[in-house]
C-alpha cells in the first residue's frame, strides 16, 4: 500500500511577457509510489525538476507553476486525498503539518527573524490544535526538542542567534512536532559543512527509525543518498530515468546517466580520472525530443532521438527508462 502515489504528473511553469509565452516543462510525466516506513531519495542535478516535484507534492503550487495533468494521491489509511484538487483551507486544516510536513530548501532563512523560536512552535501548534495551557505547551515543546538533542535555550533565542546547523535542526524539530506520516526534506544538508551534515542526517534517520514514517529526501548529493535512503529515484530533465533500492542503484546502475552520476563519486583508494559528461542539462523550456538525455549520452542510438523511452521493470523494484535496456543491449 502506498502512502503517496504520483501518476503521470505534468507540472509546467507558464509565463507570458509581451505576448510571448514560455512554458518550462519542469516535471513531465512522473510516476512513483512512496511506502510507509521508508526513506525515499530523489536525486538529480540542478534544474532537473526536483524542487518543482516537491512543490506540487507539498501543495505549494503558485503561478506561474501549474499542474496540467496527472494525479497526486495521499492515502493515510483512513481516507484518500487528491492533493491537486483539495481546497487550500482543507489542505491547511487537515494535511499540512499534521500529515505532511516539510523541511524546506534553505532552511537557514525559514525562521521569522523577528520572532523567538518558541513563538514559531506556538504559531504552528495554535493554528492546528489550539493551546489551552501555555505552561503545558512549553513543557511539551521542551520535551520534544530535548528528545532530538537540542538544548532548551534554543527556544528563547532569535533565529539570528543560532548557527546554521542549529537552525536546520530546529526546522527538523518543527517538522516532526506532530509526528506526521510523511516528511519532505528538500536539500536539508546542502548549506552545511560535513560534520554538521552528519549530525543532521543522523537526526533525520533516528526520527524515521523511531516513528516509522516516510521521508522523501531530495538532494543532489549522491553520498547523502548512499548513507540515508532506502530507495533512490534519479531524475533527469523533468523525468524519472531510474528507480531502485539504494544498494542496487549503487551496485548495478543501468541508465547511462545514473552510471555517470555514480562513477563521479570519489572513492577511497581509487585513483582514476573522473570523466565528466559533455554538454549541460537541457533547457526545459525547449527540451530535446525523444530521450531527454540523448544529446549528452555517449551510447545514444537513432531511436533515442525520436522516441521517448518507456519505463521498464528490470526486477521487481528496479525500473529504468532507456532504449538500451529495453532492447536488451544492457
Amino acid at each position, binding site marked *: 500500500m502506498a502512502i503517496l502515489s504520483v501518476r503521470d504528473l505534468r507540472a509546467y511553469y507558464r509565463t507570458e511577457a509581451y505576448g510571448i509565452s514560455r512554458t518550462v516543462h519542469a516535471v513531465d510525466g512522473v510516476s512513483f509510489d512512496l511506502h510507509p516506513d521508508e526513506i525515499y531519495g530523489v536525486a538529480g542535478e540542478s534544474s532537473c525538476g526536483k524542487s518543482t516535484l516537491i512543490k506540487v507534492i507539498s501543495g505549494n503550487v503558485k503561478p506561474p507553476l501549474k499542474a496540467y495533468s496527472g494525479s497526486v494521491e495521499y492515502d493515510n489509511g483512513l481516507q484518500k486525498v487528491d492533493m491537486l484538487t483539495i481546497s487550500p483551507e482543507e489542505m491547511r486544516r487537515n494535511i499540512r503539518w499534521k500529515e505532511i510536513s516539510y523541511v524546506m530548501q534553505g532552511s537557514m532563512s525559514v*525562521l521569522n527573524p523577528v520572532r523567538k523560536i518558541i513563538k514559531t512552535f506556538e504559531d504552528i501548534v495554535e493554528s492546528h490544535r489550539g493551546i489551552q495551557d501555555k505552561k503545558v505547551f512549553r513543557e511539551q515543546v521542551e520535551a520534544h526538542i530535548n528528545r532530538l538533542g537540542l538544548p532548551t535555550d534554543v527556544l528563547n533565542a532569535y533565529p539570528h542567534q543560532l548557527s546554521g546547523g542549529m537552525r536546520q535542526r530546529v526546522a527538523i524539530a518543527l517538522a516532526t512536532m506532530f509526528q506526521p506520516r510523511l516528511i519532505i526534506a528538500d536539500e536539508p544538508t546542502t548549506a552545511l559543512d560535513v560534520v554538521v551534515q552528519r549530525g543532521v542526517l543522523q537526526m533525520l534517520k533516528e526520527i524515521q527509525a523511531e516513528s516509522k514514517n516516510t521521508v522523501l529526501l531530495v538532494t543532489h548529493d549522491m553520498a547523502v543518498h548512499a548513507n540515508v535512503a532506502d530507495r533512490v529515484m534519479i531524475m533527469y530533465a523533468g523525468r524519472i530515468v531510474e528507480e531502485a533500492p539504494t544498494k542496487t542503484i549503487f551496485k548495478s546502475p543501468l541508465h547511462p546517466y545514473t552510471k555517470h552520476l555514480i562513477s563521479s563519486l570519489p572513492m577511497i583508494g581509487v585513483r582514476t580520472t573522473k570523466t565528466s559528461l559533455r554538454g549541460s542539462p537541457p533547457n526545459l523550456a525547449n527540451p530535446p525530443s525523444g530521450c531527454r538525455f540523448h544529446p549528452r549520452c555517449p551510447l545514444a542510438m537513432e531511436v533515442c532521438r525520436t522516441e521517448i523511452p518507456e519505463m521498464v521493470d528490470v526486477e521487481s523494484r528496479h525500473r529504468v527508462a532507456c532504449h538500451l535496456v529495453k532492447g536488451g543491449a544492457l
Partner: protein
Amino acid sequence: MRKFLLHYLLPRIAQYLTVIFIGITVTFIIPRLSPTDPVEAQVSMILSSGSAVDPEAIEHMRQALTEMYGLSGSPLEQYIAFWGRLLRGDLGPSLSTFPTPVTRLIGQALPWTLGLMLTAVILSWIIGNVLGALASYYPKSKLIYAIDLMSQAVRPIPYYVVALVLLVVFAYLIPIFPFSGAYPVGTRPSLTPSFVLIYLKHSALPALTLILVGFGGWFIGMKSLTSNIISEDYVVYAETTGIKERKILTQYVMRNAMLPQITGLGLSLGTVFSGALIMEVVFQYPGMGMLTLQAIFRNDYSLIMGIAIYSIIGVATSVFLMDLIYPLFDPRVRYQ
C-alpha cells in the same frame, strides 16, 4: 544590560546631543551673517513713528536693545551667553509683539499644532501601512484596488487644493464642519467636554486633509515592502506549515515589512513641530505654521530662531526615541 547601555544607549545619546548642539549653533550663526542690524532696524522703526526722542534716550535704547538681543560683546561671548540663556529656557522677547517672550508665543501655538499634526501623522501612518500590506497580500481585492487608485490620484494634488476642495464640499455645500480656526471666536479654550467637541469639529477638515494627502506615501512604501516580504522563505514556510492566514499576515508579513516604516515615522514625527504652514493658513488654524508665517512677515528674528530651535529639538528627539524603541521591533539590531 551593561552591554546595552555601553554599546547601544550611550552612542545614541551622544549622537542625539551632538545633533542638537550643531543645529542650535547653526541657528546662532546664520542670523549674525545677515547684513541687517536688528537693533538699528528697531531704533529706526521707533524713530519713524514720528515721536521726538532726545539723542541720549536713543543711545540708551540702543544699548538696552543690544543687551536684550544678546548682541553685546565679542561673538564668542555672545555665543556663551546665548547658551546660558537657552539652558535657562529663555529665548528672549519677540520683536514683533514686544515684549512677550518667544517661549510664551510658541507655548500658545504648539499644543494646537501638536494635537492636530500628531493625530494626522500617526493616523495616516497606520492607515497607509495597514492598507499597503493588505493591497500587496490580497492583490485581487477590488476594494483595496479602489483605495490604491484613490490614494494615487490624491497624492500629486497639492494639499492646499485638497484642503480647499474639502472646505467647499464639507463647509459650504454640505455645511457640517466650520470654515476656519481651532475654536469659534469668543470661546475660551478649556478642557471641558463641550469645548473638546467644538475643537474636534474644527480640526476635522484639517486632519482629513493631512491624512488624505499623507497616507498615500506610506501606502506605496508599505505595498512594495510587503511584496518583497511575501516571497521571503519564512513566509512561504509559514504557509506550508499551515499557520493561520491572519497570523501570517500580521506576525510574519507586516511585522517584518514595517521595520523601515518605523524609521520613517520617527522622521515625520519630528517635522510635526514646524506645523503644516499652508494648511494652517487655509484653515486659519492658530498653530506653529501660522506663527512662523507671522514671524517671517514681521522680520521677527528671535521668534524665527525660537521656532527653529524647537524644530531641531523635536526632530532630534523623535529620531532618538525611535532609535530607542526600534530594538523592540527588530531583535537583530540589539546590542550592536
